[in-house]
Each structure stands twice: as structure tokens, then as C-alpha cells.
């Protein structure tokens, strides 16, 4: 259930009126005064959305500027402009500081589509010489335009697309390549490590920054920034969704050839070792990054494993999809992406899944947490790879991965063998009677609940009616207790019900 949020306007028409007071004629100070007065009253009623509050402050300064310059010094005018702009930028940027570390305000402003020079102005006004009146006036005008396009219009026309779409996410691959190059060099020649340390750190941070940008971009794709106070307590779920989205994108890129899986087929396998062993060079290059990122995003291994198994199971299923009409388009796309299967790529990915399973918990101190994480990963692998299909057309890689995992977990092995033995039509045998019984039980339960609720309501309403008349006797002058006899009817809070 979604809770609504208090808004100061009775209907959107009232907000529209304020908007037209502000924007219909730039030189109509009287209309702007109306808007300021209305916004002040609204602000007293409920905490305003940040954009409205900013509009209120900037309008007040514009009025102060337009009215009479003689009444106050220009310094106070500049101070007013400056603080209005500082507060506007801060208030827009702060909600998007989602990560553990501060992101640069510039990058957030870019995502928001806020002109960069406003951010510079904020910095100058805060830390440097107070900017000139001319610049400040320009900024105020620019801000009001920005608010019109980014707050008023989208709020008043909820379906209209925002006129200033946020920037697309920059590609991650170059960042990863940069990292890979650096690490390749240092793993080959350890003496270079000192020399490259700073650069490696920078590369790591670039990747981190990309993740936080991806999180913000995800909010654009998942539909707008949340209202604050409703989502206040369920920040968890929303931030989870954003993080999930970002980590999934990261995993996608990591799985591309030339990232976790080397381009050269020869380098993908580790000769002479057991099945699904990764070549040492790959591990040396990528494990520092994975460990670093996992420290900040503990769910990363899960997402990586999901992506890997998703790929492996796709590799498994092409023949199945040919009979499945709904999946047709998907499989076609895939066929375009990957014209022919690449067994060594699959094997290498499976090896990474195994490696993640074995090593992902090294950074987790809490034994329970580690066990839980490991368990989750096994569950994802097993459920995605559909062991019931293993005997069928499963690829060698998926098969090998399942075997390796189950070899270390006897219980799982037993379960898997049962699963794969069961003929697939067993699901059709599920007894219709069982479902019917469950249905009747559910209905019985529901009926019980309804009966109970109705009961309590009835008894309660009878008691309340009896109490009303006695109170009217003692009321002071000017007060009157309304009742249905006076023509009063229930109405939402805030609505005045006219009684004769």
C-alpha cells in the first residue's frame, strides 16, 4: 500500500495558477507578489517540495530587486541572491548523494541537467568573492527558467516527457580497459607497482564514480525521484533497486569479451589444473578490483554470478526457444549478438562463477553473512541453470559448473540427482484435488476475517451515536457541534462542509 503525501494545494489547478502568476509576464511584479504570498501561506501549511521553496526564495529576491533599490544596500541584495542560489543548488544535489562518498556537485548537476555555471556560482558565492549583481541577476533568471522546465511543467503535465532529459550514462568499458592495462603492466613487472599506484587508485575511483552515476541514471529510467517523506522509511528498497540496476550494468560490461574473459582463447584456460580453474593472470588482474568493489557493494558477487548463469543458461536453451513462440524475438536478438557459440568463453565464465563462489566471502568478516552470501550464490546458479535440463542439451560449461559445485556439497548433489532423475512431466501430475482443497481453505479463512471485521465495526458505530447529543448543551457562544441533522456530511480533511 502506498501512502499519499500532503500537498498544500487543493487541486493541481491551484499550482497552475501560481505557475501562471510567475511566468506569464516577466515584468508583472504584482502577479509575482501574488505568487510569493501564496507560496508563503503554503509553506506555513506543509513543508514544500524543494523546487517550490526555491522558487519562493528567488521570487522574493526578484521582488526586492524590482521594488526599490534605495531602501537597502546592494550588498544585501547580492547576499539575498547568492544565498537563494546556494540553497537551490544544494537542495537539488543533496538528495542525489546516494553513495558512501561525496560525489562532485558538477557530475550530479550534469545528471540533473542543471547548468554548470550555476554550480560554479554556488562555489564562488560560498567560498570566494561574492559575485557581481549582474551575474546574480542572470543566474536568478536562468534558475527560474530551469524550474519551469524541470519542475512546474512536469508536475502539471505528469505524462509529458521532461524537456531536459538527463544525460545518458557514459560508457564503462574505457574505464575498465584503463584499469586492465594498468594491472597487466604491474602484474608482469612488480617493480612498476609503486609507479602506477596512484593511477590504479584513480582508475578504481573512476569505476566507483561510474557506479554512483549509474545509480542516478537508474532513477531516470525507473521513473522520477521519489517524494521524500513517503519514501523516507523505505529508502532501503528504493536504493536497493538503484544499486541493483547499477550493479547489473556493471556485470554486463564485465562479462564482455576482453574484460573478465581474455580476448585470446589460449589465455582463457589454465592448463594442467583441475576443471574450471582460472588462469593466474586473469585472477591477478581482476581480483583487486572485485574485492575493492565488493567492499563497497557487498551484493556485487551475487549480481556477477547471476549475469554469468543467465548467459550460460541462454547458451543452454536455444533449442528450447525454437518451440517457444514468446521467446522467439529474444532468441533472435541473441543470435545476432553471438553468431556462434564460443565454448571456451563459456568455460571461462563458469570458472569465474566458481572462483567468485570460492573467494567472494574472503572480505566478509561475519561468518553468518559469508555463509548466507555463498548460499545465495549457489541458489542462483542452480536455479538459473535448471539442473533438470542438464542431461539434455546443456552446454559443457554449465554442466561442469554444476558438477564442481555439487561435488563440494553432498546434499546438493543428492538433490540434483533426484531432480534430474524425475521425468519432466511430473509437474503435470500435480493433483488437481490438492489445489481445490487449498482454495476452499483460503476462502474459509477470508470469510472468517470479513465476519470479524464487520462485527467490530457495527458494535462500535452504535456506541458513538449515543454520545453526541449530550455535548451540545455546554458549548460556549460561537461554538456549535455539527451533526448530520445540520446537514453536515463526511468529507476529506481540509474541505469545509457548508451547513445552513
Amino acid at each position: 500500500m502506498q501512502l499519499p503525501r500532503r500537498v498544500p494545494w487543493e487541486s493541481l489547478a491551484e499550482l497552475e495558477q501560481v505557475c501562471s502568476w510567475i511566468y506569464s509576464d516577466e515584468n508583472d511584479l504584482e502577479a509575482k507578489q501574488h505568487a510569493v504570498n501564496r507560496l508563503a501561506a503554503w509553506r506555513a501549511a506543509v513543508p514544500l517540495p524543494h523546487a517550490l521553496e526555491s522558487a519562493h526564495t528567488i521570487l522574493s529576491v526578484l521582488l526586492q530587486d524590482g521594488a526599490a533599490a534605495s531602501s537597502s544596500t546592494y550588498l544585501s541584495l547580492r547576499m539575498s541572491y547568492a544565498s537563494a542560489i546556494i540553497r537551490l543548488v544544494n537542495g537539488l544535489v543533496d538528495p542525489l548523494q546516494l553513495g558512501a562518498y561525496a560525489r562532485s556537485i558538477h557530475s550530479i548537476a550534469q545528471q540533473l541537467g542543471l547548468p554548470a555555471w550555476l554550480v560554479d556560482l554556488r562555489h564562488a558565492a560560498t567560498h570566494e568573492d561574492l559575485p557581481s549583481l549582474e551575474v546574480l541577476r542572470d543566474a536568478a533568471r536562468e534558475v527560474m527558467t530551469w524550474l519551469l522546465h524541470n519542475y512546474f511543467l512536469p508536475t502539471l503535465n505528469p505524462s509529458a516527457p521532461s524537456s531536459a532529459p538527463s544525460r545518458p550514462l557514459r560508457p564503462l568499458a574505457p574505464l575498465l580497459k584503463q584499469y586492465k592495462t594498468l594491472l597487466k603492466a604491474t602484474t608482469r613487472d612488480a617493480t612498476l607497482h609503486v609507479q602506477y599506484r596512484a593511477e590504479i587508485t584513480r582508475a578504481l575511483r573512476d569505476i566507483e564514480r561510474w557506479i554512483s552515476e549509474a545509480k542516478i541514471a537508474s532513477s531516470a529510467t525507473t521513473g522520477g525521484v521519489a517524494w521524500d517523506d513517503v519514501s523516507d522509511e523505505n529508502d532501503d528498497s528504493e536504493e536497493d533497486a538503484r544499486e541493483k540496476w547499477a550493479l547489473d550494468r556493471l556485470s554486463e560490461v564485465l562479462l564482455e569479451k576482453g574484460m573478465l574473459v581474455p580476448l585470446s582463447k589460449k589465455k582463457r584456460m589454465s592448463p594442467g589444473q583441475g576443471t574450471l580453474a582460472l588462469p593466474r593472470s586473469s585472477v591477478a588482474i581482476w581480483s583487486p578490483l572485485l574485492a575493492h568493489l565488493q567492499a563497497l557493494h557487498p551484493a556485487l558477487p551475487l549480481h556477477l554470478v547471476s549475469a554469468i548463469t543467465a548467459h550460460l543458461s541462454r547458451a543452454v536453451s536455444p533449442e528450447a526457444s525454437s518451440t517457444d513462440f514468446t521467446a522467439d524475438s529474444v532468441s533472435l536478438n541473441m543470435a545476432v549478438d553471438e553468431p556462434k557459440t564460443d565454448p571456451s568463453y563459456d568455460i571461462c565464465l563458469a570458472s569465474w562463477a566458481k572462483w567468485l563462489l570460492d573467494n567472494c566471502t574472503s572480505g566478509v568478516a561475519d561468518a553468518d553473512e559469508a555463509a548466507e552470501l555463498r548460499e545465495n550464490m549457489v541458489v542462483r546458479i542452480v536455479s538459473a541453470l535448471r539442473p533438470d535440463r542438464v542431461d539434455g542439451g546443456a552446454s559443457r560449461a554449465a554442466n561442469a559448473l554444476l558438477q564442481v559445485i555439487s561435488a563440494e556439497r553432498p546434499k546438493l548433489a543428492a538433490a540434483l540427482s533426484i531432480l534430474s532423475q524425475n521425468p519432466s512431466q511430473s509437474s503435470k501430475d500435480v493433483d488437481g484435488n490438492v489445489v481445490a482443497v487449498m482454495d476452499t481453505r483460503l476462502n474459509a479463512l477470508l470469510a472468517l476475517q470479513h465476519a470479524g471485521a464487520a462485527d467490530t465495526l457495527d458494535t462500535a458505530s452504535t456506541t458513538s451515536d449515543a454520545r453526541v447529543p449530550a455535548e451540545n448543551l455546554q458549548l460556549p457562544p460561537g461554538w456549535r457541534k455539527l451533526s448530520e441533522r445540520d446537514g453536515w456530511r463526511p468529507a476529506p480533511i481540509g474541505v469545509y462542509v457548508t451547513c445552513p
Partner: protein
Amino acid sequence: MLSAVAARKARLAASQAQNTTPVAAAPSASASPPPSQTKQKAPPQSTSQRPPSSKRKFTAAAGGTAAKKKRREQPARYFAQASADAFKAQDDVIVVDESDAESSFSSSESSEEDVAAPRRTRAWSPSAPLADSSDEDDGDGDEPIVLDYPLSAPLDQVSVEPASALSSFDPVLNQNVFHLAPASETAPKSTVLLLRSGETVALLGTYTLTVLRGTITLAGVQLLAGHTSHPVYAPRSSPIPIIQCRLSRSTPTGRAPLLPALPERIADASPHFDAVLMLQELHTGIEGLGRICRTFDACFAPARWHRNLPRFDLGLDTVYFLARQTPDVSPLVVPPSWDAAIGSVMPPPDVDEHTLLGQGATYLVRGPKNAGKSTFARLLLNRLLSRYQRVAYLECDLGQSEFTPGGMVSLNVVDRPVFGPPFSHPSVPHASHYIGATSPKNSPSHYLESLQALIQLYHAELQDAALDEQPNDSRITSIVPLVVNTMGWTKGLGADLERKVEEIIEPAHIFTFAAPSPEDGWNVPGPSHSHPGGATVHAVESVPPSSLASYYSAADHRNISMLSYFHAVFPSAAPSTSSPLATAWDTSLPLCAQPPYQLDCQTALDQLVLTGAGTEDVVPSEVHRALPGALVALVTCEPGTLDSDSDSDTVSPSTLPYSPGAPPPSPHASRCLGLALVRGVRPHPHARLQLLTPVPARLLGEARVLVMGEMQLPVWGMLDFRTLDGGGEVAGVEKGRVPYLRWGKGEGAGGERRRVRRNLMRRGQM
């Protein structure tokens, strides 16, 4: 969660420093580094940048599932988690509900003083105070005392119960449990329990408890046999009070006659037991609040997934016997240091009242938030009530008030112990002043002035107001002691205010809570200034927040208090010697369907005042736009203290009597009678307001001034609970068209309320 991030960071830094690749690293045995170590990594100049916020949930870097699991497994205080398999299974079921509650039910407001997330010890805190200069000089007037009084009887046996057992009492029908036939159809059902010394009983629900013989303690308060029956409210949202049978030492006459004539079968069985108590169903309608504010849904009954457990049936509809601890309930624990501290300030038994007269009887409770201040203050109040006929209670905490909804300071006079969370005893206070916000940060001087007015009133009217001696009441009548609960804001301006509050109150005894971790400030013992009266300082141990803190945030408790207030029914008779408490709750109709009062502003209203930052800019022609759905305080002023000049000049008689920038009425010449909800305004032609208020009608005539502050009605109160599970219409208006409410996400940038992150780290802090 902050600690998790900090610990990970530290570990990462450590692994990088060693230049080892995690490939070789075995599952880290280093666990989390000690706080001191991580603390050193923080650059000192950054300490002042980010004040703490334990409120903001910090999930960006922490995995959702892992973090949630961690929170869920936090053990209830003092009781080990059950290890039985059945419990594990139940634990799993809870997850669904918890995430449900978190994602869909949320409070509509939260101030920054809120502490919603359960407290965790932080590995590193940017807010750790540096050695504060004011902590260095100890006050000369204070004498911290060591508490090692030999207690006459241990009161804290509750805390040494075997793990997971809440009740050691083993109920057997017709042996130690007897159902009484109700006197009539409508009379509440009763059950008699026979207890042996030391046995404990934990009950969930609402009931009245009467001790027929022997002595028991309830929630740490001793109750003797007598005619008094105590209403008890024990919802799941608060720690459950435990009944414990005590060995009555003074029974020379032995098995004294049972007070009411009990059936013979009970009388026959009772000689083998030490205490006899009667439980009665209590029907007040308070459980209906859970339907209104769904965060507290069915909190007076066991959680859904425990409802079908085999449970001993007490034969009462509103009471549930809790044999074992389940994850959704936690017992009220009274640490020994609390007992010792309270015991040390109680007047010795059989003391001559007149020798006490000169001694101060003002008790102040102070400490950081979430330390257990309110629980302690309630316990102190209840314990004092066993020796004094009346006790005054001064509430200085605007966020979570004991006897009123938030936003006001109040003085209450209590004459019998209260058992239950604050929302179970809203009151019409003896006197109160409306501040209009959940924190005094915007009006510190008005806050202090209000407290000053209340304390003066206490000294003038209450302190030594002797009552006629009541028969059968051996309690002290000539003195009314005062318990003062302070706010938990102990840093910055808060610390400054706290100090001034102490100067105003001049307490004789100060109970000060040790901070749970030294990083949370409030160094103890830290009387950093001298009290003119030379207060005795008692250090008491703080209690970690129970597991319930993760289910219910401070904002949730504030919401339920407000809704409880507006649905409360106060006795309409003129007040006796104490402040009237709510006796019932009218929860049959949502607020939007309750018939309001209509008042004619010209006849009934002298002034409308807006307080709060920025309200000076509200012009008279627009003020009616601010009022729909607003909370206002009903204030009565002494005649002649309002400047009526301004009214006649600027305001025409037909509009609302408002002039911008008017200060709130002086606390020395006014009183707040209670709160009202403006459910509708008509500005023209004759200004009229429609108000909902639980304040008794006889008081309304005095309320000629309305003061509006920043407090908001919780959004639950604006909804219609009857349709909440269906279409969500409000009073017949369909969901998308309800005025003043908006469903769904806002669109456009800046469409949300500003929010502040105080735990943001800089790169340099890695």
C-alpha cells in the same frame, strides 16, 4: 550500517596497505577492527563537518539482504534468542512482514532528531566529540554518589529468567487459574490468578489488574493488595510489563481475608499461594488505533504468525498469556542500577511527613536519546506514587511526550501509576504551552520561557498543596514531588538548552544516563556546571534499545500519539485533583467522518497566531490557505494580555483575526488547553472554522486564541481506514481526487522535500 561500511573500508585499506591480493586471503579472521584504530584514520579537521545522523539509513553501500538479516537478528535485550527450530521458522516468516512494513507503511514526517534505525555501535564516528572544555571542570555543588545500597529485596529477578521464557508461571485451569462468571451479560469477564513467590507472568493486551492478596511488582512497580484496579496497556510496540509475585514480608495475620468475596473453590486453593490477583478485560477502543495507523496494526494481539500457536487461554478476550519470548515482543527490563538509584531517593518508610518538607523533591532525568529516559522517568513516577498521593510530571521533550502529543511542554498531576506506552494515556494536562515543533531549535527562548512558567506554576499551586487525607491511603499528601523528563538533544544548542533547563528547574536529584558508547557524547559523570541548590547526581545505566526499535521509529511513535490524542475520549466531568487521562478511544469513525465543531471567528476567537520559521510572511488575505488540515493549539490568555488594538485597526471583524508576525502569547499569561485539527475553513463572508478536538467541551469557551505551529497531522489521520484495503477513497472521494493529498511519485526535479545527509564521507577518508 555505518559501522559496516566503515569496517569494510578499514579492511580494504588494510589489505591494500599490505599489498596482498585477496585471492590468497583466507576468510578474514581480523573481524572488524577496533574502533580506536579506525578512528585514527579520520582526519581531525573533518570532525566538525558532519553532525551525526543515526536516523538516515545508509544502504547505498551495504547489501540489502545482508543488512536486513543483520537487523532482524539483533537479539532482544537481555534475552537470548530461542534456538529451537520452530523459532527459526517463525523468524523467517517475519521477514515478509518487516519488509512489508518498511516498504509500504511509512510515516509521513520525520525530523532530524528522529532516531529510527536501531542503534548500532559505530566503529567510527565523525561526530565523536572532542574533549569538550566544559566537561573539564566539575561542578562543586554536585556530589556524585556511588550506588551500592544493599537492597531490601532484589527487584531485578526478571532479568535473570532463563532465556526465552517470559512467564515462569505455569497456568493450570482451576488450580491456579480460575475463571469468574461475569455478574451480567455486559460486565467484563474476569480471571483470578494465584501466584507463588518469584513467579512471573507476561501478558499482552489491555486489562485491569487488581491485587487481591499479597504483593506483586508490575513493570518494576510494587503493588499492594487493595481495592485499586490498575488499567494496563501492553501492546507489542513497547516492551511488555512483567508481573512478578513478591514474598510479602508483613503478613503477620497470615492469609488476610480476600477483599471481595471470592467463590469457595478459589478461597480453598489460595492458601497454597502467595498472591492472588484478578485480571479483567479492558475494552477502551484503543486497539482500533491500529486500524487507523497501520504501522501499529493489531499491536494489542500476538502477531499474525504467532496467533495460532498453542497458548494458554485465560478466558479473557483482550488479554494474551505469553509463555515464551517471540521475536515480536520484548519484555520490559529494569536494570539494577535503576532500582538502586530510585531506591536511594525514596523517603524512608514511616517517615514523618514534616521532616520531608524542607527537602527538595524535584527529580530530573537527563541523557542522550534512546537511552531509556522516558521509561526511567515513568518508572520513577510510578514508584513515587507508591509513597506520595500525587506526583507532578513536567515534560520537556517536545518530540516524544509522555502525556500529550508532541510539540508542547506540559505539567501533569498524576495520582495513580500509569502502565503503558505514552499513546495509552493522553491527558488534559494541568498546564501546558504549545511550542509548535518537535524540537525547540527554532524557538529556544520561547521554550525556556514556557518551562519557566510551568515551574513557577508548580511552585505556586502544586508543590505544597495539601489535600485532605483520604481514608485507607497511607501515602504522603502534603508534598507533591516533581519528575522532570528532559529532551535527548545533548549537543550544540541542545546542550546549552539542557543546561538552562536545569538552572530553571533547580532539581534536588539528577539522574543521568551513561552514553551507550563514549562516542555519543554526554560524558558521564559530567555535571559541567554547579547547581545552585547543590543537586545530587545519580548515574544510571542506559538500556540498549530493544529489538522493537527496528519495527517502530520515533516518528511512528509520534504519529500514534497524535492519532491517539485525536481519537481519545476524556472524562467530561470537572477535574478532580489530578489531570484527567483518556478513558476510551472513539475509533469507530475516521477523523474525516467525525462531526466537527463549527466556530464563528467573530464571536469565539480573539487571535490567530502563526509560529515557526518564515510564517511572518503570511499575509492576512492568504492565511486561510495555510489552515486546511492544520494542527492548532487552543490557548487561553489572561484577560487584558492581548493587544486588542492591532485587531481593530488592521483586521475587519468578518475575517480571521490574524496579524502577521505576532508573537505567540506569553507563557506567563496563557495556557494551552489542547490541540485541534482545522478540518475546514470558510474565509468569507463571515469567517468560520470547523475544528476537531478531544478537549472537553467545558474548556472550549476559554480557548479564544489559536496558535499554529509546524506540527503536522500524520497522513494516516487524513485517510479513511474503512477503505484502506480497498479503493482508498476518503469519505467517498475517489483516491486521485482527494484534496490536499497526492498519491504516487512526484515528477520533475526538486519535487521532493529537501533532505540532508550528514554521514557523507569524503574521498580523503578512505
